């Protein structure tokens, strides 16, 4: 069905209708409707069910969550020590580690890119 362009009067009538619907007062309340108790109860039930699921499946670890996931600053201290220790072991493995690695990989693996093959003179 093709429709002719509306007249000015028809556009004015539409503006009046839009304004009337936009400003339609809601009985017994102010400018916004008061949701029924039943509606709010349903929405709250949805919220509680979804919240249980959300907390059970941890949220994506964003930058704000990683610290809590690791147990906070006290745990981070321990992790820092472990991290540094791991780096040291990798850069300058004591002889025992070399032997273990050789056993596992079938060959001696030695990394000396920093010239720190025995920085603490453990191998005497």
């Amino acid at each position: 069905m093709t429709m002719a362009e509306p007249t000015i009067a028809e556009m004015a009538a539409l503006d009046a209708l839009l304004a009337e619907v936009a400003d339609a007062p809601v009985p017994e309340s102010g400018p916004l409707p008061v949701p029924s108790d039943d509606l709010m109860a349903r929405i709250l039930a949805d919220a509680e069910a979804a919240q249980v699921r959300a907390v059970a499946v941890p949220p994506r670890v964003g930058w704000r969550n990683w610290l809590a996931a690791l147990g906070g600053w006290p745990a981070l201290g321990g992790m820092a020590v472990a991290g540094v220790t791991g780096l040291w072991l990798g850069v300058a493995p004591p002889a025992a580690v070399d032997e273990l690695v050789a056993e596992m990989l079938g060959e001696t693996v030695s990394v000396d890119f920093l010239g720190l093959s025995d920085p603490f003179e453990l191998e005497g």
Partner: protein
Amino acid sequence: MLSARTIQSDAPEAPDPDGALLVAYANGDPTAARDLMTRLVPRVLAQAQRMLADQAEAEDVAQEAMMRLWKIAPDWRQGEARVSTWLYRVTANLCTDRLRKRRTVPLEAVAEPLDNAASVADQIQGRSRMQALAAALASLPDRQAQAVSLRHLEGLSNPQIAEIMDISTEAVESLTARGKRALAAVLAGRKAELGYDDG
């Protein structure tokens, strides 16, 4: 319009208390959901009522929009979109989904008898006015219906609508203008079908 005056600041750097509550909800805060509902549900319900002119459908849309909010809460990032912007979009989409389903009902089926001595708006009283507008909105393409509703029923500015619909302000103006011409033509078309002229 009152609805526009209740909208929080548009400035991107202004904090979004709704967003903060949503993050708290996602982290298990036991009172955040109620606070969010008190703040958000009346406006969502009002938007749905104005677009759909049907209380039961408006309540269903409000419940569905809030359900989507609860589900997105774990992924919500503060400082990006505002919750109110997101809700306007979701509610508008849910409403046009419902309006689209109404298109199978011919406009004649919801037409009100018209007196040729008065305008269409004058002849449609109270609740019927809302229903007539909803029926006309249902005949529009979704995005035209959304643009017109957000502009003229919710009282939002073109930049606000552009953010909600994720389009340019020029696109908003174009959609609104085309939507209004189509609405006026639809409502006038009803008069024409009943044999009344514009005189």
